[in-house]
């Protein structure tokens, strides 16, 4: 099988997964106990119907709920294809534009966190592999294993109380100062970075272990290869051996992991944004649940699912492109 046809196969697998998610998204509200037209009275177990039969029939026809399931399903898919994922009742705006306003915040902290954790993790992992089984390696290894066991939101809360509340180094919440007047754009950017610092730091620490372990393992595998002995025998400088000969070959799994970890970082961002009251999609999702804006909840879920799936597909394709051994 050649490369492009295997990519095509992979893509069709992802398309299937995506279709399953869409179908789930379609059926979840329909499987939910209760009915939009039945009002549950406050005393438990009693159901009161506040609409007459005729009214219910009329509303069902109005919302298209009287049609057979398959017709509803196809019109749902057709709507999605046109980019119409519904209207948020609470925000009084289309779901797409509500998400659009928040997405930039989430995407920036997610990308920043991945970049930082990947960079620092790879450097530390390479150093650890170079000095493997020495004191430096052992201490660093245990330390990083220990922090990567702690859940993200707990690290976030600790930073919030110690660095923001107690020491006052960082703002307590939000993505930007409210009602601030900036004299120039540098001031504004500094303020945004100041607000983003703790969320990014938290997310980076949580992902650090993954990149550290991966680069350490991959580096150890490369360092024991014969061509490394040759490089050393040639009398090359350590720095040159690590970065030019070893890291280049050890980098492949790290590159793919960057894309694969995006889904996990997105999930982590939902929690971390809520810790720091950061105005991204994760916080929006919680707000939507709190105000029972079901259309918006579903829209955000779809958005996150599509993003994560696309990133996984990209990881697959890039891996195939970069590694000549994989067919």
């Amino acid at each position: 099988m050649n490369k492009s046809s295997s990519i095509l196969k992979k893509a069709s697998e992802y398309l299937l997964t995506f279709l399953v998610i869409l179908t789930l998204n379609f059926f979840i509200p329909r499987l939910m106990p209760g009915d939009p037209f039945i009002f549950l009275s406050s005393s438990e177990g009693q159901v009161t119907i506040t609409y007459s039969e005729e009214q219910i029939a009329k509303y069902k026809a109005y919302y298209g709920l009287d049609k057979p399931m398959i017709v509803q399903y196809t019109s749902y898919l057709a709507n999605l294809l046109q980019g119409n994922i519904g209207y948020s009742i609470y925000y009084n705006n289309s779901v797409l534009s509500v998400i659009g306003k928040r997405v930039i915040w989430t995407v920036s902290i997610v990308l920043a966190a991945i970049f930082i954790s990947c960079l620092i993790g790879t450097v530390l992992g390479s150093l650890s592999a170079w000095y493997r089984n020495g004191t430096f390696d052992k201490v660093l290894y245990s330390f990083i294993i220990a922090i990567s066991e702690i859940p993200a939101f707990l690290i976030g809360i600790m930073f919030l109380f110690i660095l923001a509340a107690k020491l006052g180094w960082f703002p307590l919440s939000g993505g930007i100062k409210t009602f601030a007047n900036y004299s120039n754009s540098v001031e504004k950017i500094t303020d945004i970075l100041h607000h983003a610092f703790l969320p990014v730091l938290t997310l980076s620490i949580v992902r650090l272990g993954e990149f550290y372990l991966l680069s350490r393992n991959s580096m150890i595998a490369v360092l024991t290869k014969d061509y490394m002995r040759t490089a050393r025998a040639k009398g090359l400088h350590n720095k040159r051996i690590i970065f030019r000969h070893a890291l280049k070959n050890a980098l492949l799994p790290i590159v793919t992991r960057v894309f694969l970890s995006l889904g996990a970082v997105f999930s982590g961002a939902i929690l971390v944004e809520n810790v720091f009251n950061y105005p991204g999609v994760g916080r929006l999702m919680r707000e939507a649940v709190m105000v029972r804006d079901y259309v918006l909840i579903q829209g955000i879920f779809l958005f996150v699912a599509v993003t994560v799936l696309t990133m996984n597909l990209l990881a697959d394709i890039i891996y195939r492109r970069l590694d000549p051994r994989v067919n």
Partner: protein
Amino acid sequence: MKYVKHIMIGIKRLTVLGKIGLGVVLMVLFLAVFSDWLALHPYSIPSGDALEAPGAGHWLGTDDLGIDIWAQICFGARISILVGFGTALLAGIGGSIIGIFSGYSGGLTDKLVMRLTDLVIVLPDLPMMIVLGAFFGPSVRNIIIVLALFSWTIPTRIVRSKVLSVKQEKYVEAAMSYGAGFWHLTLRHFLPNILPLVMVSVIRLTSRAIVAEASLAFLGLGDPISKSWGLILNHAINFKGIYFTDYWKWWVVSPITAIMLLVTAIAFISRDMERIINTKA
């Protein structure tokens, strides 16, 4: 008695950290089982002044409603243990059964099961849990079911590949040629081989489930009736002025310490178990 001896030998092979971890988990289990006697105060109604500092009456102080925090920690242990072990057992047993079946039958069934696991692994779990919780109501039972639906793939994959390799062994081929059926093979040959592997993955799933429940509760999307550790944190963080007073020293620190202790303890045990059992084999 045979099992007790096995367990004793197993404990002896744990490292110091693993033993500490086991001790902490047993302690939390003790808290959960005997919380009615240990708590001294009710966990859902006020028993003192609001926001009392830790002292003789209230060991860990009280929250804004005057509810004893030590009592909330004790009863919260129940939720964490229930969700953690409930999910792990459900996903461990269910996942193993699917894995054995998939590995044993091979062919189209195997392919379908593997495609299904691929699909579940790609799905982003936290958003999905939030959606399901929002629609079906966030009870502890629902949380366990949803977590199990996202966790079964891990034991399934491990068990399947082990069953595939065991099926190649000479003694299994011999048993098959004598006409051994699915049940005989599973009970006599597959189970003894996969049990240690399943145990390791069940321990990992436990801590994952505990963290997931705490996260959902922290977001305010967990079971609102159960006083879980995450819910205590949720109340504390949403209290106005928590950042500017000293109340966090007992109100926030206690649940965080509880969650971190339990999760790291389980991590220590699981690392030791992986070393002893050697999951790569």
